[in-house]
């Protein structure tokens, strides 16, 4: 974390007492937070048991999520209650102050005084992890650091809390020890470190800085831009996917130039380290995948292989921390497995495409997903599991387009992580038989015109000599 944020942290300390305040209608009787650092981003899951201490039933509760809002990848709140069928609750951002985001969560029904509810909040904030040292020798173990908060993050008073850190090998707390109060020491079970559970009076809006490091000998793949283009063709019954990745590795950088000798001698190419030697891309399951290709800006990359139905890409060079590698990946499916005609509406289809394929562990900063519907198709609507930043409908010309070009529906997303790969986007569009037949007819017509043109051209006499004039035979 850089200096400015430290200053902000200090600043916040001064003003913490007057932060976002709500009426103390709830009390947290148990607060359990789990930080999962197994991947290249932090998964934060908090389970709280809240008790209504007010005198009236309450249907809303507030939650706080730290981190810059632009880095927030996902935020879900779930009410754990056996009576409910749809446990995901709607939450609304009500304030963002000093790096904390305050959400109001609407409960499905008002909770009576003295009653308890159990809520689970989970969120992913990207760009939270940084390497402990910026540069290091090739093959050195990689230590990462995280700045977060230790005591309960809550706008309500808390009675009991525990914090578990999962996957933090060689955990080491770095936050400056506060004088006076004895520091809690975590108990350890393999790579899980557990603080607490502690009982006591934890004030509302009290944020206790927590800085720790851990060992993580894996790359931190980071995709700055991902363009996913789906081409729909009803004629050939195919759904083509082409993905363009701008990939980088946020792992520790090399402290000197890359030395091939050291790389070969240390056998880094064949061991787990912060270097990305290969990229594993699981192919969609249960559907046939054809015509896989893997290229980059200088042509075909020949080093890819199928391993147990997954695609194993080997980049041209090992990707060290701070290095970049752009590449294009594509394949083809049968359209009939993804698009279905809508019953009762002639020529209407529902197309289901994946939000993400690709890397097993990655953070995506910007994702542009485009669906190229056939020429003449009409876009009706689309649904996605969560909100997109923007959606644009326009037309783009491709081969043999005769009128306005392919209808292109583009969705813009930001801050995605690989965990969202299972989610689908459904595009509803209309593509009538007439539109389908239009293209071959128009194409045929143009070819006919061209042939006729050729025929007429041949009829034109371009001879500059008068008719009947025969040149003399060549002189010898």
């Amino acid at each position, binding site marked *: 974390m850089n*200096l400015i944020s430290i*200053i902000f942290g200090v*600043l916040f300390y*001064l*003003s913490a007492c*007057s*932060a*976002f*305040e709500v009426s103390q209608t709830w009390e947290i009787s148990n607060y359990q937070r789990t930080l999962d650092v197994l991947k290249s981003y932090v998964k934060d899951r908090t389970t709280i048991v809240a008790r209504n201490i007010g005198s009236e039933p309450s249907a809303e509760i507030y939650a706080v999520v730290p981190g810059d809002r632009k880095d927030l990848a996902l935020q879900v709140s779930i009410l754990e209650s056996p009576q409910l069928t749809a446990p995901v609750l709607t939450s609304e951002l009500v304030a963002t*102050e*000093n790096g904390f985001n305050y959400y109001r969560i609407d409960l499905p029904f008002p909770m009576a005084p003295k009653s308890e509810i159990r809520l689970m909040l989970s969120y992913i904030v990207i760009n939270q992890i940084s390497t*402990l*040292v*910026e*540069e*290091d020798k090739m093959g050195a173990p990689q230590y990462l650091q995280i700045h977060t908060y230790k005591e309960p993050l809550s706008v309500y008073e808390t009675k009991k809390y525990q914090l578990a850190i999962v996957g933090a090998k060689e955990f080491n707390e770095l936050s400056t020890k506060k004088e006076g109060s004895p520091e809690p020491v975590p108990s350890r079970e393999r790579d899980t470190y557990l603080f607490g559970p502690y009982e006591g009076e934890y004030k509302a809006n009290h944020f206790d800085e927590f800085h720790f490091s851990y060992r993580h000998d894996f790359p931190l793949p980071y995709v700055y831009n991902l363009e996913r283009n789906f081409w729909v063709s009803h004629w050939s019954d195919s759904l083509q996917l082409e993905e363009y990745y701008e990939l980088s590795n946020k792992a520790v950088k090399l402290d000197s130039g890359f030395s091939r000798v050291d790389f070969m001698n240390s056998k880094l190419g064949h061991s787990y380290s912060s270097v990305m030697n290969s990229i594993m891309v699981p192919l969609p399951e249960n559907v046939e995948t054809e015509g896989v290709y893997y290229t980059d800006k200088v042509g075909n990359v020949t080093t890819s292989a199928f391993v147990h139905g997954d695609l194993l890409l080997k980049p041209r060079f090992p990707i060290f921390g701070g290095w970049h590698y752009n590449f294009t990946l594509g394949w083809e499916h049968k359209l009939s497995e993804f698009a279905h005609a809508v019953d009762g509406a002639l020529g209407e289809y529902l197309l289901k495409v994946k939000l993400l394929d690709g890397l097993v562990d990655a953070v995506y900063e910007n994702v542009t997903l485009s669906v190229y519907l056939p020429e003449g198709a009409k876009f009706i609507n689309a649904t996605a599991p969560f909100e997109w930043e923007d959606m644009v409908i326009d037309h783009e010309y491709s081969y043999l387009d005769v009128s306005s070009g392919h209808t292109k529906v583009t969705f813009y997303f930001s801050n995605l992580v690989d965990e969202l790969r299972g989610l689908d986007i459904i595009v509803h569009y209309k593509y009538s038989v007439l539109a389908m037949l239009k293209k071959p007819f128009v194409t045929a017509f143009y070819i006919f015109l061209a042939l006729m043109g050729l025929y007429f051209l041949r009829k034109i006499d371009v001879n500059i000599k008068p008719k009947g004039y025969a040149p003399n035979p060549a002189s010898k």
Partner: protein
Amino acid sequence: MNFSSVFFTIACLFQLAFAIRPPTDFSKTLVIYDKDDTDFISEHTQFLSLLKSRSLDYEVKSTFEFDNTIFEHGQKLYQNIIVFPTHAKTIVDERDLLKFSQKGGNLFIITDNTGIQTDVAIFLNQLGIYPSPKGYNYVDHHVKDANVISEPNLKYLTNAKVDELAFNDGSVALLSNSELLIPVLQASKSSFSANIDDGVINRETTWHSGDQGFRIVGFQGLNNARLTWVGSPAFFADGANYSEDLVADLVDFTLHVKGSIKTEFISHINVDTNETSYKVGDNAKFQIGLSHWNGEDWVPLNTLEDLQLEFIMLDPYYRLNLTLESDGVYSTTFKIPDQHVPKILGDH
């Protein structure tokens, strides 16, 4: 009280604090003194209050208190380090000192003739400063007291008028021909330094002779990290010897309180089309805005007369003088030549 208004005031204060800081916003400064010098703090109150007046966030540690680390996780813990004469076996490894300077840290090193700390000496040698080792004494038979320099001829970094400069236990340095060194105070022409143990004076036993010796030297690395070496601690101590103007100037230079130039902007435009793309033969206008730190603020720099622009392909094709156009803005107009990689280089 409403929270947002509180935040606003704090933010304002913070802004203000930021504005009076020197150019480098990170100003943590470490002052190291010898552990045997128990009265150091009480004897250097004037110097320390000078540091305070420059709004430097400083720590004073004896070599005993200092844990020999200036880096943590590859980041430097301090922006500036001031080292007073010490006999400690190690303070910071000389490679760390090099790294510290390489990363933009500033150093202020004061030595004397009672023996120079090894790390510091090796480091200074790397820079081309060779202070006289233990046992060499500064001798000048033409002056009464070698511990006082009367009317020192101070150059470059200071305009301070000093009548008598205390230079007790002064050491003297030889300098290499490095262009990065700035000799502030030269030894007098009639001086030499000799090893007192030997008793004879010859080539081997003298360190310097005449004005090839130097007593105060400044240094600015290519990355703008600065260093000052001073041959005697005498005029930093409280009392009559304290030479306020000189010390202030040296500190201001070394810790980047003054003498920093910053490029505000660089722009170029095609005069014929008003675009930033060029064809061969087009006229281009190049502008650069410069400002310097006057101790409190960045102000436009208007005093340069020798600023040049080069347009290079293998050899400089153009070398044009930039003229002052408006406050702090220098510019020139030229014709784009063919077959040149437009590497624009500002010389000064």
